[in-house]
């Protein structure tokens, strides 16, 4: 892949400025931005039946860093989280914009921003950074995950409830909302996902995600707690390629309003995370043993 890019981009002059097409219709600066993502720690998101898990392989670059401090999965609105891989300051810019979008949506509509709208707006924002030679594209791929509330939201707090039924009343028993997961690339392109992965170990992670039962249309879909354990296992597995480096596992989750996080985006509780890590390590050992057996 790299040699391919070398042959067609370097030295042509078409890769020196953002917003410029090469004769074969490519924007090389965007492709180079993708390179910045590909070296970052693996980040994944899993959309489960009753919530979403975000997980991150946080490579420890120095012994002097404070343990479990430098948190990188950010809360955007109460019910939305963002994890990213690539240039960390660009990721923070992305998060800051997402927060502004969520907050301005609230001030316009008195309601939290739906996941699809947030992804759409962030896609448009990131895309705008591929349009002008006065800026550079984002050097990150961002994963947005959250839960659109399935319950009715109070307008202006709890001031008056309005008619319960009838004209101006509510349709009873109607439920909307649910888990959402989107991944936005440096080009501004985004898709909705059942399982998303980016960063260095994305190939391994994607292969693992594809094995999970995540499509609700196929009948069964894993639960949030299973999702947490799978996420930990996948991050540990994806780390195998850069085994010489230490890392910390950072995980957050969002459940339904009736679930463990009450519809909020929160850090996975320490006890649950450690249990997931224990299982992940065990699963890895099991795999090693199998490999050894095969070799024998």
């Amino acid at each position: 892949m790299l040699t391919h890019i070398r042959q067609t981009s370097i030295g042509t002059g078409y890769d020196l400025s953002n917003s410029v097409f090469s004769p074969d219709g490519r924007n090389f600066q965007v492709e180079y931005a993708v390179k910045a993502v590909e070296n970052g720690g693996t980040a994944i998101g899993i959309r489960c039946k009753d919530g979403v898990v975000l997980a991150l392989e946080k490579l420890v670059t120095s012994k002097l860093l404070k343990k479990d401090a430098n948190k990188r999965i950010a809360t955007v609105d109460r019910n939305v989280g963002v994890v990213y891989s690539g240039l960390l300051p660009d990721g923070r810019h992305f998060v800051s914009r997402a927060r502004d979008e969520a907050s301005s949506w609230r001030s316009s509509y008195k309601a939290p921003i739906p996941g699809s709208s947030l992804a759409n707006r962030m896609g448009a924002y990131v895309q705008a950074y591929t349009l002008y030679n006065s800026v550079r594209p984002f050097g990150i791929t961002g994963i947005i995950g959250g839960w659109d509330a399935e319950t009715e939201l109070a307008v202006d707090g709890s001031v008056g409830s309005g008619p319960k039924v009838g004209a101006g009343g509510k349709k009873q028993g109607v439920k909307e909302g649910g888990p959402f997961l989107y991944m936005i690339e440096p080009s501004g392109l985004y898709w909705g996902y059942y399982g998303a992965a980016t960063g260095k170990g994305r190939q391994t992670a994607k292969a693992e995600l594809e094995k999970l039962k995540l499509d609700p249309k196929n009948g069964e879909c894993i639960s949030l707690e299973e999702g947490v354990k799978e996420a930990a296992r996948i991050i540990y597995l994806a780390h195998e390629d850069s085994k010489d480096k230490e890392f910390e596992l950072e995980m957050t989750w969002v459940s339904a309003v009736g679930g463990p996080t009450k519809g909020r985006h929160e850090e996975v509780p320490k006890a649950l995370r450690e249990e997931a890590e224990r299982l992940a390590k065990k699963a890895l050992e099991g795999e090693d043993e199998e490999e050894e057996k095969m070799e024998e």
Partner: protein
Amino acid sequence: MFRNNYDNDSVTFSPQGRIFQVEYAQEAVKQGSVVVGIVSKSHAILAALKRNAEELSSYQRKIIPVDTHYGVALAGLASDARVLSNFMKQQSLASRLTYDRPILLSEITSRIGDRAQTNTQHYGRRPYGVGLLIAGVDARGPHLFEFQPSGVTLECVAGAIGARSQMARTYLERNLDAFEDCSRDELIKHALRALKDSLSQDKELTVDNTSVGIGGLEENFKLYEGQEIASWLETTFENKAEGEAGGGEGMEVDS
């Protein structure tokens, strides 16, 4: 010869996804004199080596107290640090004025991080050419943060930036486990020793070229310089002083 075309501005990625202008800005940090920071359970400490342009000139300022609860130490372009520290002062005052609470160190650090990031994504600007160590105490206890020109910010137990700072980091890594339970005096000693390790052979720490900044659970952040640090230097490097001070003692008797 292959000329690097990708390093002219901060809005161009190299084919490897690097931004050379930002990396060059990091080099400017390495040109600055070394600063060290450490935190314990109760204190956050900064120590810095000051340079003077010539024998008769004054020494540069390396540690800037920002609010009563924290301060920063800089390595790199001092004027960039002044811009950033003024911004930090404004933000810190705003927090006290609007909420009557000292700003969290994590918050102020991420605000300058975000500001620095903007300079790396827009044409016509340059990245800040300065690295900072931000140390002090907030509602969540003592903290130390490192800020880099790229906009990267990291919370550390200990850290060192600037010229030859790798030596200081080696010292810090070796003594890492001891810091948490250190007393104020022990922490100062560690900071000074780490600082000393980054000095070139012909140089010494003196009351003129050393600054120390201390914040604690029970004390406001304060900058110590000149004679205020004399006793710390003496007790930290006493072994060495004994070896060399034979003549010195004699003079003391005379006076």
